[in-house]
């Protein structure tokens, strides 16, 4: 052996220790009484703020606006891409002089006419459909045929039938609302439990009274979904129809405002118009429909 190995070393150690008895002191370890873990700690200001979803969204919006502003200034071409501040300036100018509000009022008026007509028609159609097998087939056939057909595609036809102006636009609006609402209403009606329906029939309700007093409240969640989808369709259709077929300035809605300003190369105003379309959409989704939900399905405990 040339190098001392560990085994030889240990054997040497055992040789020396074998002379004395082995004594090891006892080790007593006290369990450490650590500090109490915090059960509740006040959140820092940042965490507190971070909890609020509206604030998070606001920060995102502000960041986007800042990016837009920086990019717009860097590009320095208000014809192609106005900055955020230019857009806002155009927006407030046209809100101030009432042009935008007036245009929005025209659009809203057209929209409400078309929307309510669509809902009434959908209700009639579904009431008729719920009564019999053939009615159900009729509704299903029509819906599957017309629902995939984009409303704007009907505009050329509508222009021939109803001329240039609100008539045509209302026609395509009705088309865009009708099928979405009818589809949801019908599926909602069919999901109403037989028990409820029979209770209603026991009270002697028939036809439209049964629909009105039993089916509509019972199927309200899906009807509301239909109304929401219908609204979104109608709003998009309306703006697109006014834009694409900006055929008659007599209709003068928001889409027309965008079209007109595009033609006059007032790009900031085009952006302002688009911004207003977004704002109205948000308002209806988050204020109007939210209020309806709170008053009905949340209150009735149908949806949490």
């Amino acid at each position, binding site marked *: 052996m040339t190098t001392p190995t560990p085994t030889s070393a240990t054997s040497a150690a055992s040789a020396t220790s074998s002379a004395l008895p082995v004594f090891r002191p006892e080790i007593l370890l006290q369990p450490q009484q650590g500090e109490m873990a915090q059960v509740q700690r006040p959140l820092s200001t940042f965490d507190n703020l971070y909890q609020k979803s509206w604030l998070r969204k606001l920060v995102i919006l502000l960041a986007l606006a800042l990016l837009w502003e920086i990019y717009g200034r860097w590009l320095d071409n208000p014809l192609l891409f106005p900055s955020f501040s230019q857009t806002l300036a155009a927006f407030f100018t046209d809100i101030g002089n009432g042009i935008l509000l007036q245009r929005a009022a025209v659009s809203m008026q057209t929209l409400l006419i078309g929307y309510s007509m669509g809902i009434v028609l959908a209700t009639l159609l579904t009431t008729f459909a719920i009564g019999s097998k053939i009615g159900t087939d009729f509704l299903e056939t029509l819906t599957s045929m017309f629902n995939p057909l984009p409303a704007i595609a009907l505009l050329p036809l509508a222009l021939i039938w109803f*001329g240039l102006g609100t008539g045509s636009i209302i026609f395509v609006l009705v088309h865009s609302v009708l099928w979405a609402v009818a589809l949801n209403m019908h599926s909602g009606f069919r999901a109403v439990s037989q028990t409820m329906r029979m209770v209603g029939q026991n009270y002697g309700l028939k036809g439209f009274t049964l629909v009105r007093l039993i089916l509509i409240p019972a199927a309200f969640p899906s009807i509301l979904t239909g109304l929401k989808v219908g609204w979104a369709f109608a709003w998009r259709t309306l703006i697109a129809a006014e834009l694409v077929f900006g055929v008659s300035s007599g209709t003068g809605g928001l889409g027309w405002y965008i079209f*007109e300003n595009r033609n006059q*190369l007032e790009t900031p105003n085009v952006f302002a118009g688009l911004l207003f379309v977004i704002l109205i959409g948000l308002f209806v989704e988050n204020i109007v429909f939210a209020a309806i939900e709170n008053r009905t399905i949340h209150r009735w405990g149908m949806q949490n």
Partner: protein
Amino acid sequence: MKCSARKTVSGLLVAATLALASLSGNAMAEATTVRLSHGYGILYLPLMVIRDQHLLEKQAKKIGLGEVTTTWTILDGGNVINDAMLSGNLDIAGTGAPGFITLWSKAHGIPRSEVIGLGALSTSPLWLNTNNPNIKSLKDFTSKDKIAIPGIKTSLSAVVLQMAAAKTFGAASYAKLDPLTVSLGHPEAVGALMSGKTEITAHFTSPPFSYQELKNPKISRVMSSSEVLGDITLDVVFGLKQFTDKNPKLTQAFMAAQEEANAYIARDKKGAAETFLRVSKIKLTQAEVETMLADPDTLFSTTPNGVMQYVQFMGLAGTIKTQPAKWSDLFVADFATRKGS
């Protein structure tokens, strides 16, 4: 190429090639393809002749640019042409003077979008025709009537109509007829007016459409622009300023080609009429087109006449905010010495 990022990249590329070119001592090569557009009517005849006889290619060769290819599209209505220009899909276009002035004014001070006129194109009387027997003058239009024009607010017909309205109803009511206007290309508008089945009851248009419509006994003329404005230049040719700056020789070649086309139209009415029928594919007889060309109010000249009338009017109407100090500011430098207005 709307993507501005791409524009920056292409800008960098241009800068790089410039640097390379200056290093190697070569002059910048000019573009080898030119994208041009013209509209439908007789007002665009010089451009049709240039297209038909390949005059631009010919002049480019003459000036020493070698082989140049041209691509042509048909665009009508100021707004469409402006969109194509701004997005960089067009180099040279014929358009109504008001549309050009609007774009010139809006783009003034934005280097990438600035436009410049290459010259006047033509003038001819615009006629307001109607199929409504009750309409004898501008005052007889009611809200039930619809006037078809190729583009609202900025197209030639739209602005000339406003000018006529200003003369009829007073300067403040220049936009009185605007709510009646409907955006419709000339050929479609002719069809609509002739059929009488649509809501279109009037059409403000240039030859040959105005002539085509009047052949129908149900249609009558309400007004002619030459009564209101005289022989004012209606259409001009323009391009992006960066295009003319980068391609000075090509710009010269185009202007020479336009002069040649105008000379040809003056010299050979018959041939010009044939060219018009061939390029525009409009269903008219040779004799009818020759009659139109013989109209003393139909003129093809590169020197503008009366563009400042539009500028003043549009300035008063608030359509444009930036105004050129003199007419030649709207056009390339060669025009500074010419006698236009």
